[in-house]
């Protein structure tokens, strides 16, 4: 019997990917906007 480890692996992988992906997107966008606003202030 497989004991359903495939479902467990899928669940933990999807959760990690979704949360890390979301966190990364927020961080990247924050960094980008901060840089853009800094450049605009300089101009």
């Amino acid at each position, binding site marked *: *019997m497989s*004991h*359903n*480890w495939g*479902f*467990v692996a*899928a*669940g*933990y992988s*999807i*959760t990690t990917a*979704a*949360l890390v992906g*979301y*966190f990364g997107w*927020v*961080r990247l*966008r*924050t960094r980008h*906007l*901060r840089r*853009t*606003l800094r450049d*605009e202030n300089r101009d």
Partner: protein
Amino acid sequence: MKRLFLAVTVVALAVTAVFALWITPPRADQGFDAVRLLYLHAPTAWIAYLAFGVTALASLLWLLPRTRSTTWDLLAGASAEVGVVFTGLTLVLGSLWGRPTWGTWWEWDARLTTTAILFFLYLGYLALRRTGTTADERGKRSAIAALIAFVDVPVSYLSVTWWQTLHQQGTVFNERLSVKIDGSMAFTLVAAVVSFTLLYGYLVLERFELAQLEEGREARELERAIADRIQAEHVEVAPV
């Protein structure tokens, strides 16, 4: 301070994962090892309710003239977005757990259906936040929508009590308030709820900061557009 918050959150999540994957026992009546999805599914559902609760509270504070502030509007939006991510995860994890235990990926059961409705209601809320010409107009529309959408939260939570459902009753907060979990499983569930709550707090903090930057940029773009128009009008009426 924010880095310390992140470090504590990551450590808490790592400890929870170790307990969830290696220390807690499998359960024959819950899909054997698939029961390990409980430590993700229940906390993500809790965070979804918490996030939409915070959105509703912040929206109410925005609507009240005495407490009206852009902060509440931005907090409502930030919390709703994080809530949508967690609601999506709740649905996916529930489906993954349902397949080995119930033999189906999806059932039009009251809890599942009301959770799916919750997901789409707040997706709509996020779409609504992108409309409106002024911050005030956007704030008013979205605050009212958030309060209406929140009605589905208690309905979803109580659906297992109100209707005969395939979904089990609450493990801790059920009709008879009899806790149906103990030992390492109870400890891991509590640890998961605490660590996911920390993660929610951190994500909202990050998203709120981004929302403030977006707001600042929008205001600047509006100012620039107005200045450009005034300049254009001035050129048009100026004598040749």
